[in-house]
């Protein structure tokens, strides 16, 4: 690869609109600054950071260079990404908490029951909110496909459909196999089954990731009315509050089970202690990251709706 090609590669960190405007002169500056030498790693990191910031700005996630409508859209999509983390964390939580009530003394069950119930109900309400958002954007999606054709959105949708289909087949196979196994084999007694479960979790994560990426890619192309965008923004803020409830419910369940039935938390095969099982730590980190991401998006949406109202 020639040195000019290496300089050209560095500007790929920046969004296409930025490259179109500044790309040529930026490469000229790199040539003037570094000549025949390689660009130092420190400078590469600055360029990567600077390019990522420009991408976030052009997507409407940072700064005020895009319209309030675009900022509402960007904030809402950020919250959708956070929801994907919660779906994964929720799956881990649901698997880990199977049969928890059977091992918890009846008298000590009300706090974890309320926490568990809050997680379940908030999860259901969250799914309803996401489906309502799909209904809101559906007319715009049909319009997009009719006016601009299927080609613009085909790749991300087909990719996501393929991964979801593969994950569904994997899940069905795993469920059938699990039904032929005894409780001992399913709970760490059978090594192949024990090893395949993490692969299944990864495939579910991939399905969620590709589906969310497809949803984001399509939603960025949709021509939505101001009213539609405000409705989406409102739903996104509601979804953020739901995530906070889910996290609070999870913590309430975790804390109370740790206090009253710590033996249950230590049942996992990889457990390192009674109160901090790895599965719950992973779920907790995913939820924490999800809430932080969603809060960032919610602030963006709320401020942008406020700006629009004041204009």
């Amino acid at each position, binding site marked *: 690869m020639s040195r000019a090609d290496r300089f050209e590669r560095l500007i790929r960190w920046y969004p296409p609109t930025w490259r179109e405007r500044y790309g040529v002169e930026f490469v000229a*500056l790199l040539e003037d*600054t570094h000549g025949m030498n390689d660009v130092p790693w420190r*400078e590469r990191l600055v*360029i990567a950071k*600077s390019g990522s*910031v*420009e991408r976030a700005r052009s997507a409407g996630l940072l700064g005020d260079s895009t319209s309030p409508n675009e900022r509402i859209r960007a904030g809402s999509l950020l919250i959708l990404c956070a929801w994907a983390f919660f779906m994964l964390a929720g799956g881990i939580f649901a698997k880990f908490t199977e049969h928890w009530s059977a091992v918890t003394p009846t008298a000590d069950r009300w706090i974890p029951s309320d926490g568990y119930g809050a997680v379940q109900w908030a999860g259901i309400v969250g799914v309803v909110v996401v489906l309502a958002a799909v209904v809101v954007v559906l007319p715009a999606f049909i319009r997009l496909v009719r006016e601009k054709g299927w080609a613009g959105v085909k790749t991300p949708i087909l990719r996501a459909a393929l991964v979801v289909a593969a994950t569904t087949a994997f899940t069905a196979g795993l469920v059938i196999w699990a039904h032929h196994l005894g409780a001992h084999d399913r709970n760490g007694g059978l090594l192949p089954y024990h090893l395949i479960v993490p692969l299944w979790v990864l495939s579910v994560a991939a399905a969620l990731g590709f589906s969310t990426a497809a949803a984001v890619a399509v939603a960025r192309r949709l021509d939505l009315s101001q009213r539609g965008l405000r409705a989406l923004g409102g739903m996104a803020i509601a979804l953020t509050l739901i995530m906070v409830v889910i996290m609070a419910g999870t913590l309430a369940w975790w804390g109370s089970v740790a206090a009253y039935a710590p033996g249950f938390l230590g049942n996992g095969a990889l457990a390192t202690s009674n109160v901090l099982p790895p599965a719950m730590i992973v779920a907790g980190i995913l939820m924490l990251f999800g809430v932080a991401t969603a809060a960032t998006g919610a602030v963006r949406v709320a401020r942008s709706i406020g700006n629009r109202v004041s204009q």
Partner: protein
Amino acid sequence: MSKKTTQVGLRRPNDPPILILTSLADGPKHGHALAKDIEAFAGVVLGPGALYGAITRLEERGLIEALESDDRRRPYRITSGGRAALGEAVHDMRTLADVGAMRLGLGAMNRVRKVGLTTIGMAP
């Protein structure tokens, strides 16, 4: 710093936007010439990433503008808005410097300014 100055993104004296506006106040320059000039008068090395991050923001806010050029190295010049913003920032920095000099017992700010100008080779 005044509210107006911070609104246009000018905060500290060694911020890339202030350094770029200060450099362009002397006449139009392209990226490499800007970086060299800033290194000479402020001792700050601005890499291409930091430099173009600031150029993008300044152009977006209308404080600088690109000039037509056949060369790949496009020159930029300061706009009237940029001059006004730089003037505000310089005024704020001067006020701060005057107060600091007075409290340190350095006497008249002229003396401090003379030392500063001598350092960058611009003393009359």
